[in-house]
């Protein structure tokens, strides 16, 4: 795999391999010195055109744990602010001969586009409302550690599907892994013809008791009220996952950052069924696996830089 541009592009086998690799890196993260020399001498550039805490810091940490050199370029304070085009920025950065460019952009297709302009491997860290493949991978990883197998699991993705790249990547990712996926939200926030992507569509929480996993999406409150939903109060009344709606057999996920009291109640967030903290933890090992995968695919690493164990670590939780 030369690039990771989308979940759409990759197969279940690719996903299985990445998750297995992430499992093997979990052992590294448990060591007192959390570093392996796998990518020593390689350069990774994080090119972020959008604010990000989790994704950018976990990519940075992942690259550093693999001993790569990391440069972080953010749109504010860089030549992007001076009007440099994406193409020129990428070609300029490519002159430093990076092995990988990790890109976050507010626009769909940015990662795919720059992969034509640079010899480096490109990893999509979120492109507009299109996809966020590493988020989907870390969600699969987290959930699999908890429940063992994903085959046949009933997953409900609830909230603002229209504006969510996480929703699009996760519908594809969960479906590829054999889950039954339902997207649910206000009709104004579900794209037309969404059902043709292979998921069920619901406009209310009726029936959510059948879900094994509830994946709540972030409401972007600043642009919601009055245009897409009449009020956040009404949204919460209809779609908030709270202690009453979250049943004991169900697991709860959320990509963060959470709007407490909007899509999730404090009670739900703090419940033992919530996997939100584990999702963040998984971010580092999954992104280590992705970096290793695209860079070992592009140029064979030398034998001593191989990961500590080619076998996946045993999965946690019950099967």
């Amino acid at each position: 795999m030369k690039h990771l541009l989308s979940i759409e592009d990759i197969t279940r086998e690719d996903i299985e391999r990445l998750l297995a690799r992430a499992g093997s890196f979990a052992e590294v993260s448990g060591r007192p010195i959390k570093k392996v020399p796998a990518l020593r001498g390689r350069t990774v550039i994080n090119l972020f055109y959008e604010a990000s805490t989790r994704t950018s810091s976990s990519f940075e940490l992942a690259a550093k744990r693999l001993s790569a050199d990391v440069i972080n370029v953010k749109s504010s304070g860089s030549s992007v602010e001076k009007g440099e085009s994406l193409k020129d920025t990428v070609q300029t950065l490519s002159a430093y001969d990076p092995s990988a460019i990790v890109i976050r952009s507010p626009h769909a297709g940015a990662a795919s586009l720059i992969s034509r302009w640079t010899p480096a491997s490109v990893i999509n860290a979120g492109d507009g409302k299109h996809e966020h493949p590493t988020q989907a991978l870390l969600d699969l990883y987290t959930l699999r550690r908890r429940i063992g197998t994903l085959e046949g699991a009933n997953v409900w993705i609830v909230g603002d599907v229209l504006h969510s790249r996480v929703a699009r990547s996760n519908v594809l990712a969960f479906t590829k892994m054999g889950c039954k996926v339902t997207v649910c939200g206000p009709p104004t926030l579900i794209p037309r013809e969404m059902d043709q992507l292979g998921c069920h569509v619901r406009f209310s929480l009726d029936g959510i008791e059948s879900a094994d996993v509830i994946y709540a999406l972030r409401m972007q409150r600043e642009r919601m009220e009055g245009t897409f939903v009449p009020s956040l109060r009404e949204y919460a009344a209809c779609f908030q996952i709270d202690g009453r709606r979250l049943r004991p057999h169900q697991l709860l996920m959320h990509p963060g950052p959470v709007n407490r009291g909007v899509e999730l109640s404090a009670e739900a967030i703090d419940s033992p069924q919530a996997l939100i903290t584990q999702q963040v933890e998984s971010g580092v090992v999954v992104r280590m696996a992705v970096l290793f995968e695209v860079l070992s695919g592009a140029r064979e690493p030398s034998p001593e830089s191989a990961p500590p164990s080619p076998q996946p670590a045993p999965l946690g939780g019950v099967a």
Partner: protein
Amino acid sequence: MNSVPETRMRPPRLDRAPAKLANALIRSAKVIDPRTRIDGYHDLLIRSGEIAEIGAPGSLKAPDGAEVIAGEGLHAFPAFVDPHVHLRTPGREDEEDIDSGSRAAAAGGFCAILAMPNTNPVVDDATVLRALQDRARAEARVPVGFTAAITRGQAGEELTEMWELAEAGAAAFTDDGLPVRSAGVMRQALQYQRLAGRVLALHEEEPSLSRKGVMHEGIVAAALGLAGIPSVSESTMVQRDCALARYEGGRIHIQHLSARESVEAIDAAKAAGVMVTCEASPHHLTLTDAAVHSLDTHFKMNPPLRTEDDRQALIDGLRSGVIDCVATDHAPHAREEKEEVFETAPMGVTGLETAFAALVTDLVMPGHLKLATLVERMTAGLEPFGLLVPTITKGAPANVCLADLSASWEVGDSGYESRSVNNAFAGRTLTGRVLVTVADGAVAYRERSFAIGVAR
């Protein structure tokens, strides 16, 4: 009902640079002109820019000094006309100017084109219009007509001085690129048409439905996470304006239809007696939103590429005549502007040089449309504006397109007569190549490799 008073008005103008009138004999070409019901092998003699004789193959002799063009195996049609091109002048001469745009038209087999007024400055007063006509008289390879805006600055608020613009020769009024958002302003423009004349050509889109959409709303947009432009954004405005035109007895032309609902709305309006005509573009007739899945900005245009069902409705409409004509909506953009992510790239593609080949390849060759019907629809685009309908008739000004329908060619990344390269068919192999274009009596284009002889 009131009809448009064209009688006292000066006619719309077409301007072009001085050109030498052709003397040529096209020998033994397959001549197709659906209007004069010619469909067979003929010699065509052009003398001093007029069609002087149409004769049996081998029957006509070239006068001394006339050019002899071997037409064996080739087709001769009335040359095409395009009521909808963007020449980007004034303001973006880096993308296109009157010279390059009219050369592109000639290379595509067109003998006359109408330029849209959404330039910088907007063509909303007679001074700008006259300056463009002057330039066309110096540079244009084929006759070019200029349209003027319906509203000042295309802001949708105040009408332009339509009477003066019409007197100066504006070919039509249009705010193309933008809809006339206010129904009240649209109604006033239709009322004022009784004084100023000229057809109102309308870009139909309801901004509150299109919002920030960048492609057709449907499964592809859902999969890509792109904001969609629903079909009803277009069709509701088509219905609104047909209703207003009916009420005011006005004359409208709907630009670049893209949706089935719009075709149905026009069909119903025509049946109700509304004075409405409409056009469809080669890209909407041949491509769908499936192409956008690649996020290639060469598939970004407004209106957007829609579904296969919409495309079929457009083809049916073109065949039946609900859609009156083909118009390219030739929209050049600088390379660096299209080398951007899909959402921020500008809308529009070039089309003059590929229109005929694309439609031959995707509509005629698979049997969706007869060649003669295509020729009819590609030559009908100026009729709604009271301008020429090219025809191959003895005594008519020579407007002839000579094409090789067996020639396949790959649409390149460069090599256009246009200054811009943002073509939706780039990389595709198309069939049908224009070899010679005679526009208003003069040879406007000749493919470089095409052999000619001079009679001795």
